[in-house]
């Protein structure tokens, strides 16, 4: 019973190639919606199987444990909804003749390949092949970021491609080092690269080698995850990419990179104990939160604003993972809620951009009264991202604070202080945008665009609300088994 997994990784690729072949817009739209449905269903089914059976694997090639299933859910859901949004958004661009039919189909081809690469990466068993898939996603993203060929877009794309290529290269060296130290035990073969195998023999691996390997993969994949100080490409890319892509980058790709780091962390923890990797991650995480908190205040561009908030939240999630125990629970939960909230925020931002054709924060006010959908999206997302109930980010942040306080109280003090600062600065900007009286008129959006985008926003907000204060039992099983992957038990007195 493994077809859903196969479907999950193949559907986007097929849809992508398909939209390259069929050139009519309507056909592409249908294809995309079909793909969205397919990955959504497939992701749900895969997760279901994993919840039931613990693991799903196809050949020696694909293997999905709780962590992968978690990522499947995130990427699958956000990807599917993002596809709907993209149909609305890019369609609008085309209606306004900013886009030729050829470029239209190219966009969706790249978009789907990008999605496919990410979905593949999280379900692969072999860490080296996972690297290849991630590199694939990097490259397709590189093309998407520079998609509209403005100077800014090119600059952002260039920076992205250089920095993340370097990062990814470092990550590969990390992988090689793991292989280098594991092949003595598992033999010179694919076995030596399967994480399932690695976990098994991790205790026997050479600590020194694994340490170095972890540092390389932390910095390598960390560059992709936008951890400070490797985050520098992130604001540019998120701001200049077409908004559906910004949403995907922030909600999916960063999460994917975190996933990759986690795979290595799991091995490292088994080999040298959780302290080493934990401390490194905690340090960088706090740095990331600090950086983003300070940059909220000086923002002039609302897409950059949300980009920095991604840095902050990836930092928070990593802090959770770095702490371990139910910190892992919180971190994973944080990733999912962040993905939902952040994509919502970018959906809203995209609509605003379509209307005003500029990204200047100072000139956008009174969204609630002028663009109810976008306004609500940004307000709700802003409240959620600021870490307020009834949204899950509050839950995870408190849990992380708890975990941190248990492990290292001083970390908690710093963490809470930074959170408060980030709260103030982010909310200040978000409220400035949404409340008040509208500034300029802008150009109204087309009907189709409105339908698709508001559907996307609506679904996201509903999802965000439902899992706000309540972890569905299925997801809870996933989370607990994720915690087990990191060797922590869930001692959770209620």
């Amino acid at each position, binding site marked *: 019973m493994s077809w859903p997994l196969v479907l999950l990784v193949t559907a986007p690729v097929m849809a992508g190639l398909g939209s390259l072949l069929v050139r009519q817009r309507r056909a592409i739209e249908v294809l995309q919606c079909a793909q969205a449905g397919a990955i959504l269903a497939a992701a749900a089914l895969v997760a279901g199987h994993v919840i039931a059976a613990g693991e799903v694997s196809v050949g020696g090639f694909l293997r999905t444990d709780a962590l992968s299933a978690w990522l499947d859910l995130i990427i699958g859901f956000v990807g599917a909804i993002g596809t709907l949004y993209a149909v609305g958004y890019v369609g609008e661009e085309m209606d306004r003749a900013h886009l030729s039919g050829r470029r239209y189909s190219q966009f969706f081809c790249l978009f789907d390949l990008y999605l496919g690469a990410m979905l593949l990466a999280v379900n692969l068993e072999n860490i080296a092949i996972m690297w290849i898939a991630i590199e694939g996603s990097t490259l397709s993203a590189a093309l998407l970021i520079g998609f509209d060929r403005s100077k800014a877009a090119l600059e952002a794309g260039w920076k992205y491609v250089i920095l993340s290529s370097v990062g990814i290269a*470092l990550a590969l060296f990390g992988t090689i080092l793991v292989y280098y130290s594991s092949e003595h035990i598992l033999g010179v073969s694919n076995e030596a690269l399967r994480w399932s195998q690695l976990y098994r023999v991790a205790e026997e691996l050479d600590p*020194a080698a694994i340490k170095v390997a972890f540092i390389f993969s932390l*910095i390598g994949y960390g560059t992709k995850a936008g951890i400070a100080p490797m985050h520098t490409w992130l604001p540019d890319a998120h701001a200049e990419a077409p908004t559906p892509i910004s949403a995907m980058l922030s909600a999916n790709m960063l999460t994917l990179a975190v996933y990759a780091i986690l795979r290595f962390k799991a091995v490292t923890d088994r080999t040298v104990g959780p302290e080493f990797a934990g401390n490194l991650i905690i340090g960088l995480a706090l740095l990331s939160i600090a*950086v983003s908190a300070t940059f909220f205040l000086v923002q002039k561009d609302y897409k950059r604003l949300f980009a920095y908030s991604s840095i902050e939240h990836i930092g928070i999630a990593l802090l959770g993972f770095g702490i371990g125990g*139910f910190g892992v629970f919180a971190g994973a939960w944080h990733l999912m809620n962040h993905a939902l909230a952040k994509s919502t925020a970018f959906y809203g931002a995209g609509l605003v951009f379509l209307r005003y054709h500029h990204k200047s924060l100072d000139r956008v006010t009174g969204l609630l009264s002028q663009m109810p959908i976008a306004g609500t999206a940004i307000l709700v997302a802003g409240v959620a991202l600021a870490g307020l109930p009834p949204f899950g980010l509050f839950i995870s942040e408190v849990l992380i604070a708890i975990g941190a306080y248990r492990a290292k109280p001083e970390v*908690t003090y710093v963490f809470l202080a930074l959170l408060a*600062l980030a709260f*103030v600065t982010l909310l200040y900007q978000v409220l400035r945008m949404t409340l*008040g009286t509208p500034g300029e008129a802008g150009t109204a959006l087309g009907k189709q665009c409105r339908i698709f985008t508001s559907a996307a926003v609506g679904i996201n907000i509903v999802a965000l609300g439902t899992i706000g204060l309540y972890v569905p039992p299925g997801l809870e099983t996933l989370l607990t088994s994720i915690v087990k992957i990191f060797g922590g038990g869930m001692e959770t007195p209620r």
Partner: protein
Amino acid sequence: MLNLFLLLLAGYVAGLLLPLCFPAKPSIQNILAHGFAGLASGAGILLGVTGLLAPEPWTASAQSTVPFLSFAVRLDSLAAFFVLTISLAGLATSIFALGYVTEFYGRVSLGALGSLFNGFLLSMTLVVLADNGFFFLIVWELMSLLSYFLVVTEHEKAEVRYAGLFYFIMTHVGTAFIILAFLIFFQAGGSFSFETFRHPPQPLPEGMRTLAFLMALIGFGTKAGIVPLHVWLPYAHPAAPSHISALMSGVMIKTAIYALIRVYFDFLGGQFPWWWGFVVLLVGATSALLGVMYALMEHDLKRLLAFHSVENIGIILLGIGAGMIFQSYGLKELAALGLLAGLYHTINHAMFKALLFLGAGSLLYATHTRNLEEYGGLLRRMPWTGAFFLIGAVSISALPPTNGFVSEWLVFQSLFLSFQLPTVFLKLMLPIAAAILALTSVLALACFAKAFGISFLALPRSAHARRAEEVPVPMRVGMALLASICVALGVAPMVMVPLLDRVAAPFAGMSIEGKVLAMDGWALAPVNVEFSSLSTPALALLLVALSMLGLGLAVALGGRVKSRRYKTWGCGINLTPRMEYTATGFVQPIKRVFSTIYQPTVKLETEFLEESRYFAKRRHFEFHIEPIFQTYLYDPLVVFFTTMADRLRVIQAGSLHLYLTYIFVTLIVLLLLAV
């Protein structure tokens, strides 16, 4: 009790959701929202009363899938008392709102306003009911969030947005401290349930206890509006629609008082050094005095009332602080008395402050201005509102026989009984606190003589006031309810004291009902009749009887003389509003006497006629007082952060090589660390 609780829950939830189902039908939304709110708060009143009378705390809980979180509620006497307070205010405001919100039709989405109103009431109720730290934090934050959105109801106004943001930031920073305080308790017990907070497996070390005390004081103090954390309050409360201001000022800040009592007397088991109590006392005295002093200088009625909330929180803390001091010396009955006094003032302030804010709302409704100088002569146009406002004013000025007087009298007593304390220092400090309290209440009296006199008496000072008309019935009913409660709590303390005793007794470790009530309930006599006694019913009767006597004498000695109506003597010219004493003029002496605190700056510009320097064409006068804490404490902070952020922009300088260098350096540093 479960049924009552569920009824309350259902009512609020219905009021939360249903209005949203009828978009663009404001009148329906209005009725649904406030009708259900009224229903639910009615249930809340019953719940509170039953809870106060119940022998044992009532608990219920629903498990959650989140670690450490469980939706547990516990209705002990303390919680019940606050539920009662919240629900009373909730009921009155709901009735009032029925009429009041009509002026928002078309301007504001009634659906949003109504459901936020219900959500706000619900969250406040849950705050006092929560029995799990995590749950508490959630509803606490929800309360802040919802109240924020209520504050910015009229967000098209810039000052409203500013007020809201200021409030939101302050309260959230406060929450950070609360989280820390809870984490300290959590550390000891490994659980967030209040039960383990109460009885941790291993006791907290002294240092940790002190830290928890301070964190709680800062965290909850921010919400309560203690000086110097009060700065948000005079912005936020006036910015909200008046019935919301009534709830925020009357009730919301009380949840902080609840939490403080919960933490100090319940979690920390009332075991603390005397200086904790002294700190609370100090904070209370400062807040009381500065609160009323800044209130005096306000001519925006709602800001004035907001500052009085700071004052009254101070008075409440005086009572509680005294109680804590006595507690730390094991003087149980006095501890109970102090606590009782504080709690009594809590509910009293909730009632008369809500009443006054509703009154202010009515004035706003009738005149569309909040500026005292533009009112005047309203008592003849709005007799009902005027009467209710007067009752509120008399109560807040602590004049017999109203409720404010009773509770302040009790606070006085608990401060005077300080001669039983062992140390001379405290023996001196508490009476001085009493003196400060006396000063405070007289200044409050002056302030409300101004507020009522300038706005309701003499001639109308503006076209607004001339056009004013009495407000619709629901609003009057709402105010009438609160006014009658104020009087009742004043003349019938024997009803309230036993209930309050049930709240205080468990914490102080003894019941003092018998010691406070004398002459089978007709007099209060803490802690024995010899020391002091007070009987408001007697005073009320006496006052009535004697004014009858006065009337009698007048008739007897003078016979029935019909009095003649004639215009006031204006030194020969006809009296015009411009000759009346203004609010500014009224407080001028006070401003001058206390100029060290106010640091007033006065600007007077005069344009003379060209012909002669002896005739002024127009004079422009303005004075403003220095908001010390903002200028010297908060503004510098803001400046610091903004400049810091500005400096740090160089990190993101845009150069690819720089970025590559970051990665390179990080890599090398980490590698060196690892090896």
